[in-house]
């Protein structure tokens, strides 16, 4: 019975996502409303500032590695990268992407290349735009402190997995008078970001970038599916507590 729970959970989640996508596509469907997240509301301003001031936008995928437990966080970062680099690519100085993982770097390079290709500006694409800043979390954090000043960065968006090294980045951003929007899948890091970053995403908001920035149908649908599943899991926890208390 217990071993069946996981596949049932995944299948129900997938069905809910497909149902919500279908509901969004039906004729006369109202645009889906999502609650305001301050950090995502300020994102267009940060991107706009980078373009207007002729500076770069710095997008960081954090120090997590693709292929490990942080893979989903890195993918969330890549989604945001794809959405905002399309707008930032028109700047005189194209955005730079930093990571501490070779695989994430290759995926980021591919994402950037696709964005430039879609804009018929492949000649402006530079493979060095996506780079490994350091191969360990602490060397990654230390390297980012100089990246902001050396690369003339207007704002930083960090979406990915990170630990306490993010404080080095956010403090450097404060000194350089640039804004930082940051999110991590680590609850302890989220607390650090709440204190140090200009805009911090809390909880699963890290994975909501695609729904908020470009209203991608599948991303919006997955947000609704997450809400339903959260209710189901919450109800299951309460029922479990009640059942355990009664049968004790």
């Amino acid at each position, binding site marked *: 019975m217990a*071993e069946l729970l*996981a596949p049932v*959970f*995944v299948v129900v989640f*997938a069905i809910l*996502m497909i149902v919500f996508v279908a509901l969004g596509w039906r004729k006369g469907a109202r645009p889906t409303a999502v609650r305001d997240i301050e950090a995502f509301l300020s994102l267009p301003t940060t991107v706009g500032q980078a373009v207007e001031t002729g500076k770069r936008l710095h997008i960081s995928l954090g120090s997590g*590695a*693709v*292929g490990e437990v942080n893979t*989903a*966080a890195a*993918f*969330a970062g*890549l*989604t945001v990268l794809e959405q905002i680099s399309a707008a930032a690519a028109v700047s005189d100085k194209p955005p730079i992407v930093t990571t501490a*993982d*070779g*695989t994430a*770097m*290759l*995926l980021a390079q*591919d*994402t950037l290349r*696709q964005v430039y290709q879609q804009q018929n500006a492949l000649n402006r694409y530079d493979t*060095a735009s996506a*780079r490994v*800043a*350091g*191969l360990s979390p*602490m060397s990654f954090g230390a390297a980012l402190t*100089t990246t902001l*000043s*050396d690369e003339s960065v207007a704002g930083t968006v960090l979406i990915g997995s990170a630990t*306490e*090294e993010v*404080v*080095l980045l956010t*403090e450097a951003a*404060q000194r350089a008078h640039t804004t930082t929007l940051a999110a991590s*899948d680590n*609850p302890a890091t*989220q607390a*650090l970001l*709440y*204190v*140090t970053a200009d805009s911090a995403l*809390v*909880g699963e908001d*890290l*994975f*909501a970038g695609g729904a908020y920035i470009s209203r*991608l149908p*599948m*991303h919006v649908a*997955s*947000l609704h*599916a*997450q809400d339903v*599943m959260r209710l189901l*899991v919450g109800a299951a926890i309460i029922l479990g507590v009640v059942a355990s208390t009664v049968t004790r």
Partner: protein
Amino acid sequence: MKLRASTIIAISIGLVTLLGYFMPDLRLIRVQFIAWAGMLAAVAVIIGMFNLLGVHGKKIGDGTPGWPYSIVLALTLLTVLTLPALGYLGPFVPFFKDWGFGPANVGSTFVFQYVQTAIGTSLSGLIVVFLIIAGYRLTRRPMKPMLIAFLMAATISLLGLIPLPAGLPDVGLHTLGNWLAQVPAVAGARGILLGIALGVVATGLRVLLAADRPYGE
């Protein structure tokens, strides 16, 4: 929706790997796929290292601000890469006779123990200072309910950790700090982890349903 070969391969491998967790017959295939992914990730680390060298080589070539640091980085990287191989000089150079081989040799251990660990520890110390400054800066932000709650919880938790000077009565800060750390903080962390877990599943399903294609098209 146009599906290309890369998309079909990625979805198929993803599905088989996922099913491998639920179906014992697919376990071996899942383990094999994960092993291949591990090998590819190891190759990606080497590519990442060359990327790091390339970026800093360009910085040195262009003379961009901070280029001397790039020289230090490149030299350090090359030195650390060379250290494990120096044991092979043992038969010819007496100094390297008991040097050892691989990443656990004398040189690598020395660099790890006296350079990397020391620098890492000092950076951690720096983070504590930055956090204190950030905490002070936080009080100058517009006071919102969440911020007030955060500041109160942090202050009570910190005061609860301080040993009371002799003679001062215990007003219950230690108990309150402990309760904050063990009940609301743990409950909140579990709620956040639950949300993150749901986000991870949603992200994985979007990849499996080809809505997200981080592997290119």
